[in-house]
């Protein structure tokens, strides 16, 4: 997704905002499509939250506090399986590890003049899409641009989650059934485009799915909790990939 925002014609044709106010307005505008996308996905997340037993308020706290699609999906899985503290922390670490890398990357986008308080603020805003827009800005990043995008996006994200909990059960079963795959669709949208451009990543995705499938079938591994399965397979397969084909540029 970062790739598409980098080549977004809007970014190339329009002039860069020159002051904070214009950056904020630009952030609201750029955040709107993200808000729409988040709403549909988080609605399904809300339905899942309800199924796991969360109230609307708890799901609001979760979505506003975490702002992470795969991360919240994993969180619900952990709550449902009554996971222990160690499993919660380690699963959250692994599932959200990509934000670590994005945080590393964004740390280079902040001007030395940017106050430290903004490092705390920007940290909250790191999602695949907001990171993509923020890192596509030429030169130093104006933190308020990212805040504006985040405000609009999180409104859609948290609002969708809460509505999913509240009216998810009013929807006919067929619609709920249909929405239950939207998160997976979103995951596919994150992993498949890079797989198309890089056959090694394509192979990596295929191997990951195959091993995950085997783990679900084999009697010895099917008892492993889904959380630990994600940690185990990620560390093993991503570790192997890093040995087989190290990345040149970060």
């Amino acid at each position, binding site marked *: 997704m970062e790739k598409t925002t980098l080549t977004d014609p809007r970014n190339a044709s329009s002039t860069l905002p020159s002051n904070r106010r214009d950056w904020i307005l630009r952030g609201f505008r750029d955040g709107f499509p993200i808000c729409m996308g988040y709403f549909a996905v988080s609605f399904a997340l809300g339905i899942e939250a309800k199924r796991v037993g969360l109230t609307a308020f708890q799901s609001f706290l979760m979505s506003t506090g*975490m702002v992470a699609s795969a991360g919240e999906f994993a969180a619900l899985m952990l709550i449902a399986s009554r996971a222990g503290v160690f499993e919660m922390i380690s699963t959250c670490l692994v599932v959200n590890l990509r934000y670590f890398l994005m945080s590393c990357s964004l740390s280079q986008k902040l001007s030395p003049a940017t106050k430290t308080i903004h490092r705390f603020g920007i940290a909250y805003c790191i999602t695949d899409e907001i990171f993509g827009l923020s890192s596509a800005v030429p030169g130093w990043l104006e933190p308020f641009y990212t805040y504006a995008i985040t405000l609009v996006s999180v409104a859609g994200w948290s609002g969708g989650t809460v509505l999913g909990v509240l009216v998810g059960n009013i929807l006919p079963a067929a619609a709920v059934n249909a929405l239950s795959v939207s998160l997976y669709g979103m995951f596919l949208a994150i992993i498949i485009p890079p797989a198309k451009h890089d056959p090694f990543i394509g192979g990596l995705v295929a191997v990951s799915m195959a091993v995950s499938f085997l783990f679900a079938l084999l009697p010895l591994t099917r008892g492993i909790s889904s959380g630990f399965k994600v940690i185990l397979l990620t560390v093993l397969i991503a570790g192997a990939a890093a040995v087989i*084909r190290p990345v040149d540029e970060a």
Partner: protein
Amino acid sequence: MTDNIYISLLIMCLTVYMIRLLPLLFLRKPIRSRFFRSFLYYVPYVTLAVMTFPAIVTATDHLGSGIAALIVGLVVAWINGDLFVVAISCCATVFLTGLFL
């Protein structure tokens, strides 16, 4: 075991926030280790692939709907790649196949 949902949420929210905060706060230079950099680069693909399959197939009432959603999701993501479009296509597939199954 953690039975209190608020405590669980707090632990997980703090963990996720720390992951995002610590590099921004302490890392002012690029990561040196080539292995660690490569590992981090591959993490999202493996994690999301493992979480998607086989779970997408068993997420709906009918195995057939799940398989159809997977295939449509793969094809649409390959052609278009837009988050919203792919997610909606998968949902529509499950809804439409559900009418016949």
